[in-house]
């Protein structure tokens, strides 16, 4: 028993180290796939964090929330207000965002978790849509509506003023003097992502995580045994809401603007899709899903005929034109189409999402080289999925 625990600990350390390695080297491998610039790398980290947190709720407990974008939005608005009222330092922004989105999640979770299945989903959706609609219109004094809440030069910033810190004409967030845009901003997000991943790993491995999984596989039976599931569900909901709030604050830190659209149902839907696409209930899946979707949104949408012509330039003229004609509906303004096709193909052929795809590939590879071993962690089989809703 002792050895098993030790080896699983070692394994987790290795997983974490490997994860940190991959994240911190993102600027290098990002170059290879055309994603090596700060904004997209920041988005990878931020949405990875969002999806990890979402996975704690949806992946472990099976409760499908359709309103997590609201917590992201609350996190963003809180962070920007922290910039406006207190200081351009990122730390208070992060802390307040986590706190406030946690409170918001507690309130919404308290009400929504009275119901299960699709009824729960629609309750969360309704709360989030109400937040979005109000933020876009009547709450404009707080949210600045369509334009989005921005940091302005003449904001009070009481802490900065007290400390005599001056800001330029367009104030930027900082971490004790280090301006958090560009690559420093990415590394800040990356550290948060690694911390968030570590926390999620801990939850996955803890008795608490096991109980959440048990709720997923059979909530009724757990309640019959006299086990009160509500505190567990609510705490998981609040934790995932705080992850969303953290992600929201990071969006505001790397780019001091908070827009209402990030609370819309499509944004909530996006994180659901990210999680399922990558691999629901797995450790790495959600991050992989988030990276894939953000990559498509930013890189595929940027391909135009000029780029395609350059890409296929090595072919004879006729073939170049043919290839451009074949591929152009799928890039640029057609990037949605590619995404839709990708969703369908993946879920039809590899039901467990991208992670299962990688796993299958690995198994195929391993079968040739060595006898099958134990089930690796993080795979579907490790945290099997029960009925989702």
């Amino acid at each position: 028993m002792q050895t098993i625990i030790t080896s699983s600990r070692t394994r987790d350390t290795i997983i974490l180290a490997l994860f940190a390695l991959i994240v911190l080297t993102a600027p290098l491998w990002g170059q290879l796939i055309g994603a090596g610039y700060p904004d997209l790398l920041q988005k990878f980290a931020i949405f990875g964090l969002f999806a990890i947190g979402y996975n704690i709720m949806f992946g472990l407990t099976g409760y499908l929330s359709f309103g997590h974008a609201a917590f992201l939005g609350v996190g963003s608005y809180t962070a920007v207000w922290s910039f406006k009222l207190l200081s351009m330092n990122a730390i208070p922004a992060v802390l307040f965002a986590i706190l406030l989105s946690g409170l918001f999640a507690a309130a919404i979770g308290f009400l929504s978790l009275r119901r299960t299945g699709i009824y729960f989903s629609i309750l969360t959706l309704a709360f989030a849509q109400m937040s979005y609609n109000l933020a876009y219109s009547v709450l404009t004094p707080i949210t600045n509506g369509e334009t989005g809440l921005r940091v302005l030069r003449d904001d009070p910033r009481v802490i900065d003023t007290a400390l005599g810190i001056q800001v330029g004409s367009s104030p930027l967030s900082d971490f004790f003097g280090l301006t958090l845009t560009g690559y420093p901003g990415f590394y800040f997000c990356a550290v948060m992502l690694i911390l968030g991943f570590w926390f999620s790993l801990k939850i996955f491995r803890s008795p608490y995580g096991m109980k959440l999984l048990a709720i997923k596989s059979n909530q009724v039976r757990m309640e019959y045994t006299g086990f009160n599931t509500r505190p567990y569900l609510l705490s998981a909901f609040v934790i995932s809401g705080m992850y969303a709030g953290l992600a929201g604050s990071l969006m505001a830190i790397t780019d001091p603007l908070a827009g209402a659209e990030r609370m819309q149902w499509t944004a909530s839907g996006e994180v659901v899709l990210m999680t399922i696409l990558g691999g629901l209930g797995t450790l790495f899946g959600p991050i992989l899903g988030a990276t894939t979707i953000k990559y498509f949104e930013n890189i595929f949408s940027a391909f135009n005929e000029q780029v395609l012509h350059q890409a296929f330039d090595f072919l004879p003229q006729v073939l170049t034109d043919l290839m451009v004609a074949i591929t152009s509906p799928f890039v640029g303004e057609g990037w949605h189409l590619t995404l839709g096709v990708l969703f369908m193909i993946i879920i039809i052929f590899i039901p467990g999402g991208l992670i299962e795809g990688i796993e299958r590939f690995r198994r195929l590879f391993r079968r040739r080289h060595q006898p099958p071993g134990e089930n690796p962690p993080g795979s579907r089989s490790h945290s099997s999925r029960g009925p989702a809703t």
Partner: protein
Amino acid sequence: MDAFLLQILNGLDKGGAYALIALGLTLVFGTLGVVNFAHGALFMLGAFVAVSVQNLLTISKKVKDESITFFDAYKETPYLEIWWGDTGTALIDYAVPISIVIAIPVMLLIGLAVERGLVRHFYKREHADQILVTFGLAIVLQEIIKANYGANPIPVGAPDIVAGSANIGALFGIEGLVYPWWRMIYLLFSAVIIAGVFAFLHLTTFGMVVRAGMHDRETVGLLGINIERRFTIVFGLATIVIGLAGVMYTPILPPDYHMGMDFLVLSFVVVVVGGMGSLPGAVAAGFLLGILQSFFSMNEVKSILPGIDQIIIYLIAVIILLVRPRGLMGKD
């Protein structure tokens, strides 16, 4: 008083539309257990059946406008008008009613293809997988329409005779109570379709088996009844219903490729408020939400509660779901 009556009419009209849009979704969930995120896209496809029929009817003889030299501008005269004169004009005018007839087989085929080709492989899969695959399908359908018809809305008019408004107040001696003909037709149409679906499920043997299957699929299967094939037909039926809802909606809302997504959330809210899988529930919820939405949009209400019309649908959904665990008429 007349303002009040008009809002009741608005509410009924909206309610009819919501109920009709939600009907197919709840039918598919109730029988097949599938959460169909492509439902909105099927609504959009129905509307584009009307667009295509109108385009076919108005294939035109093009006469170049010679005053414009920088590009080719044409004065278009539909061939139908040239060949058949007023009869042709009338045919074009009736594009929407004609589309209804054409939409039935077209939507049935689409429904069967989607069920056979995709959805049936997901009966036993988790809801999460169903959501992802049907959402993917919705995006693909949407993008195909966008590639062929562009992103802008396309106007499709109701027949001239019902394009305007009826002075229904005159019947009851009330001043200023006018309401568009087409909206009243829509209300009537949804009533007929809803009644038809109910009659089909309750008065036919087929319907009985399907309802039994909704209740307990395995037992029905054990009785030696091929429930799968019946499910295919149910999916086809649901697709026809949503397609017709789309065709009929075109004169009210000029269709564009994205209209399905705009109605997706709404239809889910209606279905869930009514009780997932309950047909009467969906109808009741549709009317309830429609009427309340109309009332809360009145200036008198908005002046007390600014912005209430922005959130009223969701607020009602929250209240109902908190009071009634399974929606209005859902079963456990």
